[in-house]
């Protein structure tokens, strides 16, 4: 079951297979949650946003066009939900960076690489929320600037400007730490 492609699993889910739904959940849940966490930078908000997203998506699987890839669709729902969560709590501009930890313990090929990546993650976490969300959407979640503008409801120029300022700020911080 676990090796079946998404299209087959979706077909089984439509026939009422909870097992197939479980496999799909396991396949995508972490990705969905990480997308939500990247945007919200808050575990509680990410939990809520990701759960809402995957619940909504699974509820809509009957109408899903299986010729489209499932992953990007889920990711986009998660992003929208996460941004909604931020808006709902009016935290886009005032989100506290105090407890933001963007990195897990070890992922890189080497300890040196880990240190570099952690420094970058910390630097991103240290950006103002407005710039951070733009960076995260663009570099971590692969959204082009035009789509970011659509998600955030901002002019394309504003998004590009924020991204440029964020890069400048990140470079300055990382140069001080001799990471770049």
């Amino acid at each position, binding site marked *: 079951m676990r090796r079946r492609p998404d299209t087959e699993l979706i077909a089984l889910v439509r026939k009422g297979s909870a*097992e197939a739904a479980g496999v799909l959940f396991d396949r995508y849940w*972490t990705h969905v949650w990480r997308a939500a966490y990247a945007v919200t930078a808050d575990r509680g908000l990410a*939990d809520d946003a990701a759960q809402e997203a995957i619940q909504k998506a699974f509820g809509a699987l009957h109408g899903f066009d299986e010729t489209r890839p499932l992953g990007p669709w889920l990711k986009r729902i998660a992003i929208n939900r996460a941004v909604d969560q931020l808006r709902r709590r009016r935290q886009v501009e005032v989100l506290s960076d105090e407890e933001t930890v*963007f990195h897990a313990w070890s992922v890189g090929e080497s300890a040196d690489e880990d240190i570099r990546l*952690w420094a970058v*993650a*910390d630097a991103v976490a240290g950006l103002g929320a407005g710039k951070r969300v733009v960076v995260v959407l663009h570099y*971590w979640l692969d959204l082009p600037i035009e789509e970011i503008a659509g998600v955030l409801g901002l002019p394309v120029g504003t998004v590009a400007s924020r991204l440029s300022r964020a890069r400048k700020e990140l470079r300055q911080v990382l140069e001080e730490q001799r990471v770049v």
Partner: protein
Amino acid sequence: MSSDPELERLLRDVRETLPGPTPEASRRARRAALAAIRPRRRRMKAAVLIAVALVVAVGAGSVLGALLAPRGSAAEGPMEFGFVPAPGWYALQAAPPATPGLSLVAMAANVPFSPDDSVKGLAEPSALPYSTLRTLPADGIVMVATLTALDLQTSGLAKYLSHFPLRVEDASPYVDFGVEVRPEKPLGQYQLRAAHHGWNVDVTVYFGTSAPSSTLRAQAQRQLDGVVVPEAPDTASARVTPKRATAAEASALAVVDRTFVCTVSYGEFTVVVSPRSTSEVKGVRTTSSGHARVTWGSDAYPLGDLVVVARPGLRNYITRFPGAVYASVRRCAASRTSVPLTHAGLPGPASVVRSDSECRAGGKVLVRVRAVLESPAPWRRLTGPVGSAYNGVKGHVVEAQLAVRDARTGKPLAFATLDRSEATRHWSAPWPRCV
């Protein structure tokens, strides 16, 4: 778009470092997602299955419970909890915890347990058969079950728990916050949480491979069917008091064993090992927790610590997090290098009083710390007087070992132990490596 390809590459790579969801959040979301599509008639079917399974489990439990008293160990704890080993499997129980409210532990494996993971025929109470897991072959399976009396009415957790019979296919991925037992060759780690007979039953299933085959999963399921739970918390309530289980506890470890590679300034660092002591200077009484520290700066520098294991005590400028194991976020990174916990290669006898050894290394040192904590706690970012510069775990350190090696040459530089008796021992390399 940008003229900064190096920065862009780093920004894209760093997304791989994002942490994952907690098991609790995953379980909640799974239920919500499946409920969104599951036809209602299946619930009735599931209810019938559960009812049948409960009848079978109750009947089987009373018969099979007696089989769970190998080598007399069961007399020390509730006999009805544990695994009935399937053919070719091995089962262990832990002694009842000395501290009321902690979980009872039982383990099963399709490979022999490492001698490190059992004491006189009983399972180590940490609920982590670390040595067995470290050497688990690809077709190996280890299961660890914990049993906690849980007030389901007040905890609010009931709606998130599964019911017996447990199914491997319902398990959620367990690795969280990067707590990977064997990062160089990842295990498949899954967790099941269930309510049964008024108990909270947590089962962690470790596979020797991160992609367990259907055959392996079926084998695990057969052993999972052999978990037996007491009928009600009453018989063990004198030993286990109801407590509220949290997601953090469910995913926590009672044994911390981590290896780091740490950057030291100018190749110099200091290892400080101190037994627990109380001193009085000008009328000010200070209790120093017993600790072993590797530091690249002076005692007065708040960010000088690289890796520290400290017993409980008063927080002071030396011990910023008493009762904790922690490592510098900035200077230390997790390492996959094997560092033996031994004083071999270091001259004796060990110092048993407070001692410092100033050592030199080629820019980086490997530090392995292994600590046994009295109760489980999650590894996380610690906040304190120096902000959030350290990651670690807070808890009552029962015993610990700390080994330091030169990352470049691999030569041993220092080794320290904090014993259960609160004594400390400290070995260090001879001059010119250490003074």
